[in-house]
């Protein structure tokens, strides 16, 4: 029997390596689309030219001009209206929705209804982040994968604590190992929080039914039904008096609510029995001065009376129980609801660093597997597969951005065309990476082509919409795409000079 210390070391390394390489491709795809999903509020404006108008301050809009036609056609039994205010996820328009019916979008500058273009780019990128096109099984699969990644993170941290690293003789492998370690040591707290919340979102709903069966003594199997009661408490039911009264204008009520709690960015207003004497308005939003404690389900709320604006209730961030605040703290960093552009950029940079660390680890694994036969590196199927995942994904996404402006908006089945091209390009890179014998050549070509596509999509968009000085967000997306394209072109240019063997 060998020395127990050596055996333990071998177990730790092999467990980390085995589970790590199994989950790494899924994690890479998730991180890649997740970075686009962080900027979802900006991309979803960018993709629809009908939304290119300036945001108005919510306290200066005349809501009645848009609200009254809807109130007239509303029947009496169903008297609840939800206004999604300007600025909710960066949207410049106002949405008025009723339960169980179609919602309307308004331009608050001209008070006209907007018909949105048939375009779903930002949402599609967000859905690819958790593999929604795969169907119901995808969420559970990603939950299991993130549980496995928690395993890998714990193993990695234990290894860093127990052993000293940096004794590899080969230069390239030392570089890869060093940066894989450094990046993940420093970024492990936020990365762990991301993966933990992913595991909670994916695995806990389907995996915990035995416990909920045990806890409720056989009454309820669904965990979501139990915790939903405390996460989303019902609004109290108020009786209608059937006496018509004149309401205060909604912007005056918003101003009043802003005086009551000036720290909240109001995002949503719910009107109950509007026009009746018992009418009330519930304003809820996000408090940016208390991050990690509110935003997802814990939303500070101000309830006012509709006819005179008297305060009925005022729920602050800290008023909920500590378990809810714990839930918020776990979910906050992953969902980033209501967060401004600066924090989004910081989180995106952290995640890009994590992606780079992940690619280094895949390269490290491959460089250990590579067999050199008379100074010719041999053909390894995992190497080709990793080119498909790591590099091909850039070209596929670039095609998605390019077709957004190449295909006309009037095209029938536009979404199917766009997404079909995306999937086909991605599969084509798989075929190409297996066809091309030299991996370096394949990577260089794919990088160059995708960089050119990104730059072309930014230029095409600029050419088609022209300059809008009042809406800088749209141009910022263009600039970001342009920089990404330049970066990819530079990488493609650099690969031949430096000996980078994947």
């Amino acid at each position, binding site marked *: *029997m*060998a020395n127990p210390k050596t055996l333990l070391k071998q177990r730790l390394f*092999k467990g980390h390596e085995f589970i790590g390489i199994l989950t790494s491709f899924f994690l890479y795809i998730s991180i890649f689309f997740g970075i686009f999903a962080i900027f979802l509020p900006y991309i979803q404006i960018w993709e629809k030219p009908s939304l290119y108008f300036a945001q108005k301050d919510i306290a200066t809009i005349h809501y009645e001009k848009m609200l009254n036609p809807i109130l007239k056609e509303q029947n009496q039994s169903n008297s609840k209206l939800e206004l999604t205010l300007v600025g909710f996820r960066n949207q410049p328009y106002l949405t008025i929705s009723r339960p169980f019916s179609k919602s309307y979008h308004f331009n608050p500058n001209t008070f006209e209804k907007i018909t949105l273009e048939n375009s779903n780019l930002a949402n599609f990128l967000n859905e690819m982040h958790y593999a929604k096109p795969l169907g119901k099984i995808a969420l559970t699969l990603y939950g299991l994968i993130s549980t496995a990644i928690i*395993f890998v993170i714990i193993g990695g941290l234990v290894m860093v604590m127990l052993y000293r690293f940096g004794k590899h003789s080969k230069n390239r492998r030392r570089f890869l190992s060093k940066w894989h370690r450094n990046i993940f040591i420093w970024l492990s707290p936020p990365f762990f929080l991301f993966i933990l919340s992913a595991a909670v979102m994916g695995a*806990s709903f389907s995996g*915990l039914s035995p416990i909920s069966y045990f806890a409720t003594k056989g009454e309820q199997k669904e965990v979501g039904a*139990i*915790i939903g009661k405390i996460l989303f408490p019902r609004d109290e039911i108020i009786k209608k008096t059937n006496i018509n009264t004149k309401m205060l204008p909604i912007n005056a009520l918003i101003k009043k609510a802003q005086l009551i709690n000036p720290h909240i960015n109001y995002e949503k207003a719910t009107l109950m029995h509007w026009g009746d004497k018992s009418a009330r308005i519930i304003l809820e939003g996000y408090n940016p001065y208390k991050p990690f404690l509110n935003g997802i389900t814990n939303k500070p709320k101000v309830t006012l009376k509709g006819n005179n604006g008297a305060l009925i209730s005022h729920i602050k961030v800290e008023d909920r129980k500590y378990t809810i605040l*714990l*839930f918020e703290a776990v979910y906050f960093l992953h969902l980033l609801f209501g967060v401004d552009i600066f924090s989004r950029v910081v989180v995106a940079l952290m995640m890009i660093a994590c992606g780079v660390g992940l690619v280094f680890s895949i390269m490290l694994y491959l460089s250990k597997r590579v067999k050199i036969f008379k100074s010719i590196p041999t053909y390894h199927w995992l190497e080709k597969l990793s080119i498909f995942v790591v590099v091909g994904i850039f070209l596929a996404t670039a095609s998605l951005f390019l077709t957004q402006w190449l295909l006309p908006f009037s095209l029938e089945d536009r979404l199917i065309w766009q997404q079909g091209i995306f999937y086909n390009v991605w599969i084509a890179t798989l075929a190409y990476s297996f066809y091309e014998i030299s991996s370096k050549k394949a990577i260089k070509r794919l990088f160059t082509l995708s960089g050119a596509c990104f730059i072309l999509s930014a230029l095409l968009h600029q050419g088609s919409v022209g300059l809008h000085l009042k809406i800088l967000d749209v141009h910022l997306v263009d600039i970001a795409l342009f920089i990404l394209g330049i970066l990819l072109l530079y990488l493609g240019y650099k690969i031949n000079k430096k000996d980078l063997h994947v």
Partner: protein
Amino acid sequence: MHIDFKNYGLFRLSTKPQKSAKKFGKFHVISTIFGGLLITYLILALLFLLLPNNLEHNMLIIFLSFGFVWAIISFWLSLCITKLEITLKILTLLAVCLVAILYFYES
């Protein structure tokens, strides 16, 4: 008649010599994942009985901790070298958790 006990039962699990721990066998993988899941369920059921809040809030804490607990237990089990070690660990934890759950369930 002479019976060599070394070929049967727990003896065979324990006495198989291990030269290196670089390979995970089928027994190791299955017992690490599913044994870890079973123990996680028992620990969470015990946690549910011990936490002081009402049902919904206890469930929320368990909801948040499920993946983390499973990963930690599986990691701890994956470090075992022999099959005997992993079997004993699972059985001991099973017994402890079951006794504790039965003890706290009535009160």
